[in-house]
């Protein structure tokens, strides 16, 4: 049967491409930015943007909100990618430290930084690679989500959204966050990476790395601070290295990762201190303007 060849990834891809184009073609390219975090979801998002406008180049800018505390492999990867896209790198000049500034660090270096950058460049629409299956408050998110002029999310004040008749308007009072990967799962992301041969940072694959075990997780040992031990680990999500936990794994390539995920007992979020610190913390951060 001809239809049997068509797997669910094609359907997911179609929906994402249609959303990307609908938002971009109904608004000024200059007002649009794609938030690019260097992670796997961002890699997929970038690939989808390339496909959405093919054979033309991507007409909108990308932006990385840097904290200065990303893994060094991520900076190398960014260097490479920045040749293909129009990439803005923004870093909050306040320069807080995740080891000493605690939860203020995320607030200032990520949430505040994002708001500053959006204001500085006059963006009204920001695409992000968030997925509904990532976290419970995200499972309530629209594909086109309204933020007020202070960039805040109010879950009770969203448009009734009939996908794919997305409402792509913003006003002086509002701006938009757009999530083309809304209906993808972590496994979908990896199967798509395999199918489309998409490049991702090596940290997603298992290797002997020098790590320190703590009650809140397993972290990369930095020479000056800790003495670590060698373990075969990989990362399920990427962020700032002091806040991103590794998982023990033997998955050395995309095939292995997919096999591992099929039987994974925990969600990817447990490796991120930012989402997991208290109940509802992602919802609170989103209400403050985090993406």
């Amino acid at each position: 049967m001809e239809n049997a060849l068509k797997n669910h990834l094609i359907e997911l891809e179609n929906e994402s491409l249609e959303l990307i184009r609908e938002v971009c073609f109904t608004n000024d390219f200059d007002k649009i930015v794609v938030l690019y975090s260097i992670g796997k979801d961002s890699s997929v998002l970038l690939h989808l943007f390339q496909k959405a406008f093919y054979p033309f180049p991507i007409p909108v800018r990308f932006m990385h909100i840097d904290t200065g505390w990303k893994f060094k492999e991520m900076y190398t990867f960014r260097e490479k990618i920045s040749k293909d896209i129009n990439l803005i790198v923004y870093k909050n000049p306040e320069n807080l430290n995740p080891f000493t500034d605690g939860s203020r660090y995320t607030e200032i270096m990520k949430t505040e930084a994002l708001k500053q950058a959006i204001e500085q460049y006059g963006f009204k629409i920001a695409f992000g690679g968030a997925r509904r299956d990532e976290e419970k408050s995200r499972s309530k998110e629209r594909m086109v989500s309204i933020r007020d002029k202070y960039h805040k999310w109010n879950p009770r004040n969203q448009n009734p959204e009939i996908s794919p008749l997305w409402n792509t308007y913003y006003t002086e009072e509002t701006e938009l966050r757009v999530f083309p990967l809304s209906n993808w799962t972590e496994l979908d992301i990896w199967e798509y990476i395999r199918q489309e041969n998409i490049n991702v940072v090596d940290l997603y694959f298992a290797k002997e790395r020098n790590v320190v075990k703590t009650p809140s997780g397993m972290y990369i040992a930095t020479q000056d601070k800790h003495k670590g031990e060698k373990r075969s680990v990989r990362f399920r999500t990427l962020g700032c290295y002091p806040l991103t936990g590794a998982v023990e794994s033997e998955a050395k390539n995309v095939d292995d990762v997919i096999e591992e995920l099929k039987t994974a007992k925990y969600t990817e979020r447990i490796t991120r201190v930012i989402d997991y610190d208290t109940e509802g913390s992602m919802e609170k951060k989103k209400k403050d303007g985090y993406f």
Partner: protein
Amino acid sequence: MDKIFSFICCGSVDDGKSTLIGRLLLDSGNVKIDQLQEAEKISKRNGSNRTELSLLSDGLLSEREQQITIDVAHRYFDYNNIRFHILDCPGHKQYTRNMVIAAAMTNTALLVVDCMGGIQEQTLKHIDICSLLRVQNLCICITKCDLLQGDLQDNPILKNLCKKIETLMKKYNFNYTIIPISSVSGYNIDKVFNQIYTYAQEVLETQNKKCILHIQAARLSKDTRFYYARETTHTSPEKGENYTLYPANIGVGISNVTGHGVFNIDSDIDVERGDCITNTPVLVHNILKQKTIWFNEPSEDMLLKHGTRIVKIKKYTDDLIETDDVIIFNDIDDIKENGFAVIIDNKTKRTIGCCVFIDNKRSNQQTTTHKNEDESKKQKLKSILASQGFSQADINKMIASIK
């Protein structure tokens, strides 16, 4: 996984929608340890002596505190090679709009009815919405059957409720079944799985060959025009196929397909955003027979978005909407995906209504404005000029001067 099948879970407040979704996720092995641990922790804190499975679906803090669903939750599970996308709707009256939007996106609903509470006002409301939005399959789950005493086979409460539901269903056109269940004990949950799996197979097998392309943009590269389109019926065009361009009503051939929804046509006709290229009959009107579900009060200045077209609403009554330009659509009974639109307040730019097209084909009225005919003549002229080697810019100038 071959396909994605989405369905909603609806019914009156507290009748057990989110708990049923939680049970389906759990029994299909789609709940991770940390998610379950969290639900256990909150249940304990809320003083419950069992794990509230609704917490697996209710994600907002206020939902967890008030133990009601406010907004639709999107959840996914894989079962027998099909990806299921569940939309867990709120039952509360205040949040009915969120149920409407979910119903517009699917063919199948789980409708829950509490065995003790029976049919409520909100149950009826949801049934009406499902009917208006042409949700065909209704799997009616009578929930909380663990609270009934004795043998369920001839329980008077259950028998009575089934009878009532059957009588009610006579008024509608649904393909329905009734299953008594308990999400707490797991009773008959396998039957629910089987039923939605059957619906999924039916729906996924009747994939149509109708292809409706709503043009998102046209872009010119050297001499080639590329068109980007939304595939409204999830069917892609193929090279060599013959289609019709609307509103111009001109035949065009697909000369190449370069990506999803990206293609070229074999003619120089000027196609723009909002046009529609299709291989199936569509209606092209600016007076629309419809029923609108309003989320907010209608305002003075409203837009209607359908396909990739946004037109102004000039007049509206309960049954008719007149717009300042045609839209290219179908009745909801013909092609559901092309059978409804959203209404946007032009001032606030918020979505304020969902408009369903009904009976436009049958009524056979002369509703289309002359603009449409002019458009068709203009296009024909353009293609003649183009075939004579005039540039697009010159053609546009000439056409403009004719007026």
